[in-house]
Each structure stands twice: as C-alpha cells, then as structure tokens.
C-alpha cells in the first residue's frame, strides 16, 4: 500500500524501477534500433540495430517476468520489429533512404494527414464522453467534405463553405442524436445507418450536381499560413512554415477541448452524464440536452475535419473521399483513452503511418505493387492498439446505453 502510494505521488526514483517503466524503456529502445539505421545517422552496419533491439527484447522480458505483461510484450515486439526494419534499412541504398526519410517533410505530411483525424476524434470525444457511441463520425466527415466543396463553390468563399460544411455535419448529427437519444435505438446500428445515409446523400448530390466532370477545380480553398521568418529555420521551418490554417486550428482545438472537458463545469457535466446519467439527472443536469449537445458538437467538428480534407488538403471531392478516416479517428479516440491529448497523439501516429505509406513508393522500383500494402499500415497499427498493447482503454461507464427519464 505504502509502496503504491509512493509510486503514485512522486518519488520518481521508485517509479523508475517499476516493471512498467522497464517495458516502456524497451519500447523506446525498439524504436531507437530502427531509427539508428535511418537518416541522419543511417548506420551502415547491421550490428547496431541488432544490439539495441536485443536490449529492447531483454527489457521486454524483464518487464513481462515482473508482471507488466502487456507493456513487456509490446517491448519485445518493438525490439524484434526494430531489428527487422533496421536490418532492412541497412541493406538498402543510402540514396533510397534519403528520398524516403526526409524527416521534416515526413512530419509536415504527418500533420496534414493527422488533422482530419484530430477534428473527428476530438468531436467523437464530446459525443462518447456524454455517453453516445459515435460510429457515424465517418458519415459526418463525408458530409463536411462534400458540403465544404459545394458551399465554397456556390458562395465563392472558403469560409462560408466551411460554415456550410459544419452545419451539414451538425444536421446529420442531429438526426443521429434524435434516433439515439429520443428513440433510444441501438447506437451502433444507427451510426452505421448514418454512414450509409451520408454515403448515399453525398454521392447522390455529387453526381446530380457535378455529374461525370467531377468537382470544379477553381474552388476557393482554405489558405495555408506562411511564416516567412520561420521558413529558413533549420528543421522547424519546413514543418511549420507553411501549414494550413486548419492544422493550426486543430492544435488550438486540442488544447481548448482539454480545458473545456477537464477544467470547466461544462466538461464535468458532459462527463457525469457519460458516467452516471441517473446521478447527473438527480442533480439537475439535463441528460438529453447534454447528449444532444455532445453529438451535435461531434458532428460539427467531424465535418470540419472532412471540410479540411476536401477544401484544405486534396482540393477536390470524390465519392467516399473519406475512405474510412472516421473509423480511424474513432480508433484514435479509443487508443487515446477518450482524452484530447491522447487522441491527438494517436492521430499523429496514424498520420505518420499514412505519410510514410505515401512516401514509401519511392523506395521501391517502378511497377512493383509492394508499396500498396503499406496503405494498410494505419489499420494494422489500429488493430495492435485496440488489441491492447498499450493497455485496456476504459470507456465512459454509460456509453452505448440509452437513458430513460423518470
């Protein structure tokens, strides 16, 4: 008891020897094993990755035998993967490595891929923290993507387009909320229905408005924010010098949502409704209103993510443009344990794997289909994440349960 209290409240040195920390160290070493073989260090001998990787595996075994099973296995897996990928990297030509692994470009690309996910995941947090499972994020994003383009096209302004996108996502979420909250339908079934509906509605409107020509190319897009003074700074410049406005907004959103969710009465209300609606109702919090607000907010934010995708990133729309990003956002939310910074970190991880998957084709010879398989990387990572290498995520207690007023 005493030892536990100690580890909990400070005394970092005691904490340092904990099996969990050893496991974490192992995971870090596994990553290091791979990193050694990449630019800028790019060691050419296979011994370094093997050496560090074995250290990682050793730390993993130590952690496992001391009772931190999950983290330990994670460290062992990371160590083995580090050796394998490190060895692979030492075998490939330096020129290839240098074209693929340009860290600043890779990180800027990571941020671009992560931003739609961040908006949707933070949105999902508001819905799920209030007790409504949101499988419909994908549909909300898709609405935002289409109506962003459509709105910008008819109004001639990206800002109004973005606004219309947000409204469209909120509208879809309103339907979602009505069925989940008032009609007390199964939330997963309704979420799936919302996704089908969004796919059908956006596809229908897209075909009927733009037909075979596709979305117009001359749409006002969300601008990039260029910092001239920053552009020439080593390493940081290429990453942050020319990011899209929405990426900066997503940073702001993460911080803001943390403050709202964990430092204000509003957040306390949302969380109490998600944990114990009966108790919240007893003290006078309207469960229905809170859940409505949560779901509609999530719809609006997910639609913002979708609008960034179409208006700020790829600058066009195609049927099912989101391609499962809503689900990845949901996975990121679970991965991040329903917390803003956790979810953001998970989004960055998924964004990084997408960015890597994007650049890897340069690594392979022309006409090979091997790079295609790397598109599956985010999904494999999600599986590993959900399968609990990072420990079990505990959802809000009342999630998925309709509430009946008494």
């Amino acid at each position, binding site marked *: 008891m005493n030892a536990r209290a100690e580890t909990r409240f400070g005394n970092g040195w005691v904490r340092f020897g904990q099996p969990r920390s050893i496991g974490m160290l192992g995971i870090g070493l596994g990553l290091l094993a791979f990193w050694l073989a990449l630019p800028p260090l790019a060691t050419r001998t296979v011994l370094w990755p093997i050496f560090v990787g074995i250290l990682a595996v050793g730390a993993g075994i130590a952690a496992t035998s001391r009772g931190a099973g999950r983290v330990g296995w994670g460290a062992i897996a990371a160590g083995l993967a580090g050796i394998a990928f490190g060895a692979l990297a030492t075998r490939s030509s330096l020129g290839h490595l240098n074209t693929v692994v340009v860290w600043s470009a890779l990180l800027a690309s990571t941020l671009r891929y992560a931003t739609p996910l961040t908006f949707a995941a933070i949105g999902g947090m508001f819905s799920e923290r209030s007790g409504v499972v949101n499988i419909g994020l994908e549909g909300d994003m898709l609405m935002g993507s289409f109506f962003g383009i459509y709105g910008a096209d008819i109004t001639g302004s990206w800002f109004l387009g973005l606004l219309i996108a947000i409204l469209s996502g909120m509208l879809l979420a309103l339907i979602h909320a009505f069925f989940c909250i008032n009609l007390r339908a*199964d939330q*997963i079934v309704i979420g799936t229905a919302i996704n*089908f509906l969004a796919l059908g509605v956006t596809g229908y409107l897209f075909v009927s408005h733009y037909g075979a020509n596709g979305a117009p190319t001359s749409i006002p897009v969300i601008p990039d924010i260029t910092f001239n003074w920053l552009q020439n700074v080593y390493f940081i410049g290429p990453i942050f010098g020319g990011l899209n406005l929405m990426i900066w907004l997503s940073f702001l959103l993460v911080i803001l949502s943390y403050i709202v969710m964990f430092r204000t009465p509003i957040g306390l209300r949302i969380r109490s409704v998600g944990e114990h609606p009966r108790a919240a109702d007893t003290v006078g919090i309207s469960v229905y209103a809170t859940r409505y607000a949560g779901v509609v907010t999530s719809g609006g934010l997910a639609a913002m993510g979708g609008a960034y995708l179409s208006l700020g990133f790829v600058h066009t729309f195609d049927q099912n443009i989101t391609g499962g990003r809503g689900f990845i956002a949901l996975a990121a939310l679970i991965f991040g344990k329903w917390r803003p910074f956790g979810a953001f970190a998970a989004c960055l991880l998924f964004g990084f794997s997408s960015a890597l998957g994007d650049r890897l084709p340069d690594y392979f010879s022309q006409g090979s289909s091997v790079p295609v398989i790397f598109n599956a990387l985010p999904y494999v990572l999600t*599986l590993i994440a959900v399968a609990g290498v990072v420990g079990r995520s505990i959802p809000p207690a009342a999630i998925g349960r309709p509430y009946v007023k008494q």
Partner: protein
Amino acid sequence: MSDLSGETPEAPEPTPEGTIPSVAARLALYQRAGGFIVPLITTVFAFFIGGLVVLVVTHKNPISTYKAIFNGTGLNWFFPWISHSERVTAAFNLQATLILTTALILTGLAVAFAFRCGLFNIGGQGQYNLGAIVAVLVASSWTGMPGVPHILLSIVLGALAGALLAGFAGLLKATVGAHEVITTIMLNWIVFWLAGYLFGIGGPAQSSTQASVPVSNEIAPNTHLHVFWGNPILQGLHIGFFIAIGALVAYWIILNRTTLGFEVRAVGFNPEAARYAGISVAKNYFLAMAIAGVCAGLAGAIDVLGWKFRVGVDDVQGSSIGFIGIAVALLGRNTAVGVFFSALLFGALVNGTSTRNLDPNIFQPELASNLTLMIQGLVLLFVGADVIVIYFWRTRGKLAFWRRSEPAG
C-alpha cells in the same frame, strides 16, 4: 430500472441496472413485437423517402423511376401477362438478381449469426473479399485437378479464410475485449489493400496474360459452377444459389436445434447470465464470429466460381456486398426467412439500379446506385429505432386486452 425493457412488464428480459441491454436482447424484444408488418412498413417508408429525394433533387417522376428499377430487377418475370420478348429479358434480369441474392443471403447470414451472439460484424465485406481472393488463388492454380474436388477445395478454403479473419476479431473480443466493430473494420481495410498488393500491376498474383490489367488469373474452366437456369455465357443462375438456401436451413437448424446455437443465443441475450450458467462466453464469441466468417467467405468463393471467374482490384475495392449484408440481416431481423426476403429485396434493388439494367433516359444509374445506399441507410435507421416498433407492439397489446393497466411510459 434505467432500461427500456425494465419499463414494460411484458418485456422478455428485465435487464438489471448497470448492464447494457445487448443487441441480441433488444432484437429478441423486437422479434416478439410484431410479424412481418413492421419491416414491411419500414421498407415502404424508406422507399417513400427515397422517392421524395428523387422528386425534390432531380425533379424526376419517382413512380416511373421505381418502375424502371423494378423492370430492371426482372421480378416482372413472375407476372403472367407480360409478352414473350419481355419474358426473355425479364428472365435474364431475374437471373442476375438471384445471383446477387445468393451472395447477399450469405453475407446477411454473416451479420445475422454474429448478431444473435450479441456481436456486430461489420467485417462481412472483408471476409467476403478474402474468401473471393483465396478462392480465385486456389481455383486458378493446380489446373490439372479434376473439377469437383477442385471446386470443393476452393470453396472450403475460401470459407475457411473468411472464418479465420472473422475468428481473429472474435478472438480479440474474447481475450482482450477489443470491440469487434473496430477490429472488423480494420480487417476490412487490411484485406482491401491486400487485394491491391496481390492483384495490382506487378503484384505477385496478378494476371500472367494481361500484364497491364490489375486483375487475377482466370480460374480453371472446370471449376466454374454449373449453371442450371439461363445461358452460362451470359451469367445464368448457378448452383451456388442452392448453397445459399442450404446455408439458410443450416442457420436455422444450428441456432434453434443445437447446443451451440442455444449457447450462442444465451450469450447474445445476456453474457453475464450465460457465464453464470457455465457457458464459455469467450468460446462462443470466437465460434459465432468464425461461423459468420464462414458464411461471408462462402459468399466470396461462390461469387468467384459462379460468375466472376476472376478478381480485379476494382472488384474488391468497389464491392459493397458485405455492407449490404448488414441491412439484409437487420431488415430480415436475423431470421432465416427474413434474411431470404430482404436479400431478395436488396439484390433486386442493386441489380435494378445497375448501369446494365437501368435505362439512363429514365434515371441515371450512377444516381440510382446512390439512391440504393440512401434507402439502405434509411432502412437501418428505422430498423434500429425499435422504440417505434415497441410502440406499435404496445398499441397492439392494448387492442387485444382492452383496458389493460400499463404504466405510463
């Protein structure tokens, strides 16, 4: 009691406070809440709203649009008054509809079986695709093999591949509690890209005769399933249809007449109660998903051997048969008979709105296929809202028992 079921005295399972009423428990309630009328009303309502969309957005006549779609399905074959030439076209269209129905019955069962165990299998698409991939790999290699064992081998391995994929999700659910919705969706995407790798240009299993087409090799001619109605060259109806019907019968028998089915349903109703009764919840999660995967994998294998004969990257990445299976299962309320009829409905809808069958002068097929998606979404929306159904059910109860005292809801 905070739950829906706790409110109504007639409810089958009064769920204790603190547990989530499982999907299966809700569906059981739903099951008792009325015959085929409610799904029928649901469908009609969904079509009505779809018709409104046609009218408002595209200013076309919804009735003539639906009529064109209906004629594209070939279901007018059953009308005795149509002319001979119409009957020939209708027969051809009906065969195509029934081919789709075959696959939809199986992917519908894949969702329905998992549902009865309280699991939501969104992975039918991935399981279907993997079944098709494995079947095409098996059936296009070892060309020297005699036909029947080769067919059997392809189908069995395809079904097993689906079972492995779904079983993996079931295993994760059973062991670490990973939500099956997330894991099956992730597996869908992994299979999606796996197909791009295998059959893409330069891929290891890409066609050896057409180097510039992202498609697999053709399956051996003696592995084609026998066509019993229509012209084999023009995609007549193959014997896979009977496999699907057999699967429906097997589904009913397994669920209602075996220990396995009893355990699966028990877990679906209430996992905690099942655990107290000595039923292994983990084992049933795995088995239910694996059996669901068998159904979906079977669908993929049968489609390949029955009419596709090859698998292209576009086929896999553009397919939505597995997703439509969700709507099939829910509309069919996870019963064998219901799955058959809703598979027929959606098979007809998809076929009737296809580019081949819908007259573009009346309605653009690209629009119509999105209309199909919308109708699916609406059906799911209304089917999911079982409170409406329970409302109907209560009204029925009131009518039957006159002034039976019921607590105000």
